[in-house]
């Protein structure tokens, strides 16, 4: 037996105000709300960090090496005598500074490529898909490490590499949507009523396939932050005194076994929080945009 789509006709236009709807949205999805709050907070911190941090993130205090958290240094100092709190906050700039451009690159490469391969089909599609599938035999982290290590330590490199390596996700997503829509009846209907095919595909496909991509953007941002931190942890792509959570954790690793936990834990927690925020945002968005998942909630 089937429950038909006929029964699920869209509701009459609602008279809820925008404010009420946003509150309704927040109540509906705790994960999205949490995600948004975390990302926004970190984003704000990233923007205003230079103005609010108590110390210069790369200022060295040779007389205060490895000091535990105190009133003067909330997160303590690290092995070089730098203030951990300032560095943790400042590192948010690098997180966003890499994640935002990297994901943008992924989208700018992936979405058009997905549209193209889905629409054109044929050899071009075959080759692209096979190429992307072949790359799936390599673990992403290792690949990123190897490529960045080979191409040199620069932030631009890191951004580019992460952006390129993450684009297949969008290509696949958009391509799948395109393939689905191409054979759907409403496209047939549109063609039958005389719309030029190219315009239909462009407008309809762009609108419909980007819904799924939007939710992915948050998830990919989470990955970008993670990968960058991993690169920094291994000393690849980020140079020494730069405050970056990954390299801070690396330094902290040396002191983990001797009990100076603050050097590595604070940046780690910050990293986890931001990645979690992005992940929750992505999960919540996927929930909201998938009507089937929405229908199961009460």
């Amino acid at each position, binding site marked *: 037996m089937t429950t038909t789509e006929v029964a699920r006709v869209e509701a009459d236009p609602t008279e809820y105000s925008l404010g009420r709807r946003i509150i309704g949205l927040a109540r509906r999805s705790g994960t999205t709300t949490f995600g948004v709050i975390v990302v926004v907070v970190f984003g704000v911190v990233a923007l205003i960090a230079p103005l609010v941090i108590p110390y210069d993130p790369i200022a060295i205090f040779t007389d205060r090496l490895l000091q535990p958290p105190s009133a003067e240094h909330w997160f303590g100092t690290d092995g070089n005598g730098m203030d951990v709190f300032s560095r943790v906050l400042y590192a948010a700039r690098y997180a966003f500074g890499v994640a935002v451009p990297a994901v943008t690159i992924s989208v700018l490469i992936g979405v058009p490529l997905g549209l193209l391969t889905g629409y054109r089909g044929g050899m071009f599609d075959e080759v692209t898909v096979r190429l992307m599938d072949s790359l*799936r*035999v390599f*673990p992403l*982290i290792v690949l990123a490490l190897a490529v960045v290590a080979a191409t040199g330590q620069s932030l631009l490199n890191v951004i580019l590499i992460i952006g390129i390596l993450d684009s297949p996700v969008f290509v696949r997503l958009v391509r799948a949507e395109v393939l689905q829509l191409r054979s759907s009846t409403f496209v047939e209907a549109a063609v039958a009523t005389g719309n030029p095919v190219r315009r239909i595909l462009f407008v309809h496909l762009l609108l419909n396939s980007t819904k799924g991509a939007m939710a992915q953007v948050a998830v990919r941002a989470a990955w970008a932050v993670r990968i960058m931190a*991993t690169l920094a942890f291994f000393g*690849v792509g980020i140079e020494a005194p730069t405050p970056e959570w990954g390299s801070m*954790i690396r330094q902290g690793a040396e002191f983990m076994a001797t009990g100076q936990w603050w050097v*590595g834990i604070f940046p780690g927690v910050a990293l986890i929080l931001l*990645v*979690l925020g992005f992940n929750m945002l992505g999960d919540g968005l996927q929930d909201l945009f998938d009507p089937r998942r929405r229908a199961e909630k009460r």
Partner: protein
Amino acid sequence: MSVSRFLLRRLLLVVPLLVFIAFFTFMLTRLGGQDAAVLISGPNSTAEELDMIRAELGLDQPLLTQFWIYFSNAVQGDLGISWINNRPVLTDLLVRLPVTLELLFWGVGLGALIGIPVGLRAARDHNKRFDQIVRFFSLLGFSIPTYFLGLVMILVFFFYLGWSPPALGRISLMVSPPPSVTYSYLIDGIIAARWDVVQSAFSQLILPVIAMAIVASAPIIKQTRAIAMDVLASEYVRTSEAAGLSRRVIQKIVARNSMTPIITFIGTELTALIGTASVLEFIFAWGGMGQYGLQAIIHGDFAAVQGYVLALALFSVLVFVIIDLVVVLIEPRADLTA
């Protein structure tokens, strides 16, 4: 079509992929145009020394020739020499491979053992309390970097609680290793009936395996839940409900029908998980392929990097083929000619 013919066909299809992989990993290390010769002999070498090294390594040849040399050597088992320790890459990799596999096996095994039932239950009770908690922890699992998890575990269990030994490898330095049969200290210790070895190997294994299991369980739980929810929504589950079958029987039906996609998923996830294992090896000084490879990447040991990445890719390809085979064998719907 018989199983062996299916296997043969599948393996043949894989050959172009292997060539591509070899080419890709080859290009990987040539990407940045870093001069390997400079790396090897140091920044203060004279131009003649550099030229000599280049000629020796064949770096003065056109790229495709270099690749051909590399490829033909590789097929015969010569993956070059690591310029860091001067040993053949292949030997080093082969010795370390079982070590990595041991960690991967126990870690992913534990992760699946916990993750699959949790995922199934979350799907069954979906949107209730258990499910919500599970989804949160799954997201958390996706958000904790592997190395950080390892480090925190060392901090807590070694430094604060003193429960686990120092993370200095697979076996305590005070215990002499058993004769190498499987390269797994745990198993070799059992074989040789050396209980001090077994105990030490086991206590060294606990922390990295648990860390691996935690990281592996996040995707496993998420995907198991999604798969099981799909199965729960299927027509035949509804038929079973309409026929008055008990909850337990229906749960078994759901679990069985979820297994094939779950196994397939874990197979594809192993690619990423072996990367995770490599990171953990690095943290725990595990001495496996991962630690070797990551060190190679950091120090620019390009022959070793090539070998490592190649090994990872080959592992993945092998896993995919095995999974395909397993699916064909256990699925009544599968067609060997497909």
